[in-house]
């Protein structure tokens, strides 16, 4: 009787197990990736092993023999890459483009650096699993809009709270005044366009002077222990930038504006990176001379001018790299950040070496954001963001086979693969 009750209990328990849906979650553990081609980024390319323990890359080398239990992942004939980094997106800040209440990247106001993208990131955005399935593990997600639209944040694509996702870097965005037209709908005369650009630059300089004044007042108040009279969060947020402690990301695209931005930055002692830079190839030497790094993209894009060669955008990153600029790539996208490896592939098709393109989506963004001690290469001690691919990760024909973010084995399923599973063989009768 007791035995039948026990058997019955097992049976019932098993029955309920079967009913509950198999929700795939990232799994923690220690993993030995064996016998794959390692693209270390800092120690060459060779066939070897990589050991993940407690979220960190414990060892990289040949014939690793850990003395603790591991899950073995056979990587024979596979390629092992560092998790790819997209240096400019709005991922997690928008769910559906045309539904404005799902868009969180563009707040009202022209000078609002205190707006933190990190706060508004939706860790459960449907696009996040879709993105990481192609090997992108880390992205910069950035506000956009007015002159200083807010603070961008670097996030890993795993975690259930923004704080968990945070990857240790925040930078403030400055949209440098543009001297170009806004589009075919821009009905201003040429003089008006020039005048507006001048006015905007003057306004920016005024703003900058006010920021410096505020920083002085603030430090005086602190040393003399005087209470502040007003709450000015925007100016407060800029203080670390003025001190060179926080990076300023300057979005600028047109040739003349890039040169204007380089002039503007000179002598200010800021930690700066130029973003966008779609016409960077025109002034690559000037950018190289300034030693300011560049985040550019999307690579797969139209030329900026009707009289540009058709491949101007494809070759832009390479031409800047050739002139000596440190370049990182971005998709500047929301729901198709997953195409980052293909953008890199296009950069290769139009000039870049494969290794340089890989650097521009791994170690270069890590260095630019000051997190190269944790990200960007397969190096002992770094965060275990690792991607295993069946073949060249830039090629659409390849498949991502395993994915690790923060040392968690992340499932490759997402809503789009689940829709495939459900509908590939739909019975037309019901």
């Amino acid at each position: 009787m007791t035995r039948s009750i026990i058997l019955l209990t097992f049976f019932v328990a098993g029955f309920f197990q079967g009913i509950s849906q198999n929700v795939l979650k990232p799994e923690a553990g220690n993993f030995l990736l064996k016998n794959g081609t390692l693209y270390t980024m800092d120690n060459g390319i060779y066939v070897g092993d990589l050991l993940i323990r407690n979220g960190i890359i414990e060892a990289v080398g040949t014939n690793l023999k850990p003395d603790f239990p591991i899950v073995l992942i056979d990587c024979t004939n596979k390629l092992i890459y560092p998790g790819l980094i997209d240096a400019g997106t709005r991922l997690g800040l928008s769910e559906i483009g045309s539904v404005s209440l799902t868009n969180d990247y563009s707040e009202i106001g022209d000078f609002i650096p205190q707006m933190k993208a990190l706060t508004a990131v939706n860790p459960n955005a449907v696009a996040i699993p879709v993105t990481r399935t192609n090997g992108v593990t880390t992205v910069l997600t950035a506000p956009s809009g007015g002159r200083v639209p807010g603070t961008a944040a670097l996030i890993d694509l795993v975690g259930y709270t923004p704080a968990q996702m945070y990857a240790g870097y925040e930078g403030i965005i400055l949209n440098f005044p543009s001297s170009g037209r806004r589009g075919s709908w821009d009905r201003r005369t040429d003089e008006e366009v020039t005048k507006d650009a001048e006015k905007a630059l003057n306004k920016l300089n005024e703003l900058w002077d006010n920021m410096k004044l505020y920083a002085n007042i603030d430090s005086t108040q602190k040393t003399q222990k005087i209470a502040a009279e007003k709450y000015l969060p925007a100016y407060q947020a800029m203080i670390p930038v003025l001190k060179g402690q926080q990076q300023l990301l300057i979005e600028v695209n047109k040739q003349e504006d890039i040169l204007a931005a380089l002039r503007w930055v000179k002598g200010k002692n800021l930690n700066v990176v130029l973003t966008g830079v779609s016409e960077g190839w025109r002034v690559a030497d000037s950018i190289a001379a300034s030693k300011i790094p560049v985040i550019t993209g999307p690579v797969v894009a139209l030329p900026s001018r009707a009289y540009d060669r058709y491949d101007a955008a494809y070759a832009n990153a390479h031409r800047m790299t050739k002139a000596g600029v440190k370049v990182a790539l971005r998709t500047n996208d929301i729901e198709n950040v997953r195409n980052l490896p293909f953008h890199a592939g296009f950069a290769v098709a139009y000039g870049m070496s494969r290794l340089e393109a890989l650097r521009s989506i791994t170690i270069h963004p890590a260095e630019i954001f000051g997190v190269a001690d944790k990200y960007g290469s397969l190096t002992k001690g770094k965060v275990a963001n690792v991607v295993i691919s069946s073949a060249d990760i830039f090629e659409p024909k390849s498949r991502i086979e395993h994915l690790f973010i923060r040392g968690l084995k992340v499932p490759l399923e997402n809503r789009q693969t689940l829709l495939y599973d459900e509908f590939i063989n739909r019975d037309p009768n019901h």
Partner: protein
Amino acid sequence: MNNSIKYLLFVTGILLFQKSNSIAQKPTTGSLHIKNASILTITNGTIELSDLLVLDGKIAKIERNITPPAGVKTIDAFGMYLMPGIIDAHSHIGIDAVNEATSPVTAEVNVGEAIDPFDISIYRALAGGVTISHAMHGSANAIGGQCQTIKHRYGTFEPNDLKMEGAPRTIKFALGENPMRVHGEGNGIMPRTRMGVEQIFRNAFSEAQLYQKAWEDYKAGKTNMSPNYNLRMETLVDILKGNILIHCHSYRADEILMLMNVLKDFGIKKICFQHVNEGFKVAPELAKFGATASVFSDWWAYKFEVYYSTAYNAAILTKNGVVTSINSDSEDFIRHLYHQAAKTQRYGNLSDDEALKLITINPAKQLGIDHRVGSIEIGKDADLVLFRGHPLSVYAVPQKTIVDGIIRFDIDNDPADMRLLPSATEQFSDAYIERLKSSDRCMQDVFETLFSGEADYSQYLRYQYSIGKSHNHD
């Protein structure tokens, strides 16, 4: 010579001097010899290392070691891949206007009457291996305007030279958010819901049937006075008769089924659904009807009706027997359709042949021109593209794009500025950055049509932001 003969000679002379402007001219054609290419025929496998001879714009011979006739240029294609010119079944390049957004039914308008041969996008499409595009009306209206299949004969100043002679007539229909947004939300007229969209079609087709009957009765002598001639009704009757192919912008599974049911009720047998992001959910129904599908490679989430999309759409449709193509709907994406097709190898495991069909013979079928183009077969038009690198590799670079046997893009002879009519005041525009956001181009011109003259730039930005086309606002 007597006077009447002089008069006749004079008139004949004048007639010979006239160029007929209303009928498309016989196109200029060329002859070429391509040597030692890997030929991706699409319909007949891959021929490693073969020559191909083009005579007067047609594929004349496919065999090894061809000796070309005197005066025919030889292209050394050793190490390169030769495939049919890529066909984009959904595009808005080469036309001056896209959306006659003033009524939910505008069947009488025709983008073929607004061709812009100076559009630099045509040259750029050639640089991406695309030889034919389907220039379409936009998706503002449930029944939009007629479309025009164009060959990328870039270099001509004559708009009619771009029209592909003999290509079937096509027309644009649209379902879902776009017509609802433009007419229901924008103007307060039907359709505002998907219920209304269905009734637009039923009304239009029913009225067309009455119109058709009225004319038939008149011609049969049953009535004494002819009905009023109405070009809109004439066009709808042509659709009912099957003389105009319907291409329907659509997203949701239920609206796709709705239109197939409407077509069944009115005896229309052929339809190509465009975008059809949820087509994969009703693949068996599409296959049963014989409907075809022209889809994006991976666009989604920019509107609610594409939130539940999957990049596996093309693969699922193909595996379920639906003739599927991949389109661009973008002057950017038209330049790398070969790369978009390659994505189906990752998202759904399509073979090389299956993937290449999506941008060659399948769109040709959807445009009714597959007897002329879409594969490399003797007798077909010499619309070809030579690639360095297999076209499905991300490293592929088109080398030469040939239309009717004439090299229209040559990477070895590609100056930076390829404009036909340079503008003296060309200015860099930030809107270029905005346009990089991936979403369908089908709402082009709508804002201008609805608000021109009355609105200001910040309203324009707000509108663009509201339809997901901008991430900046003032």
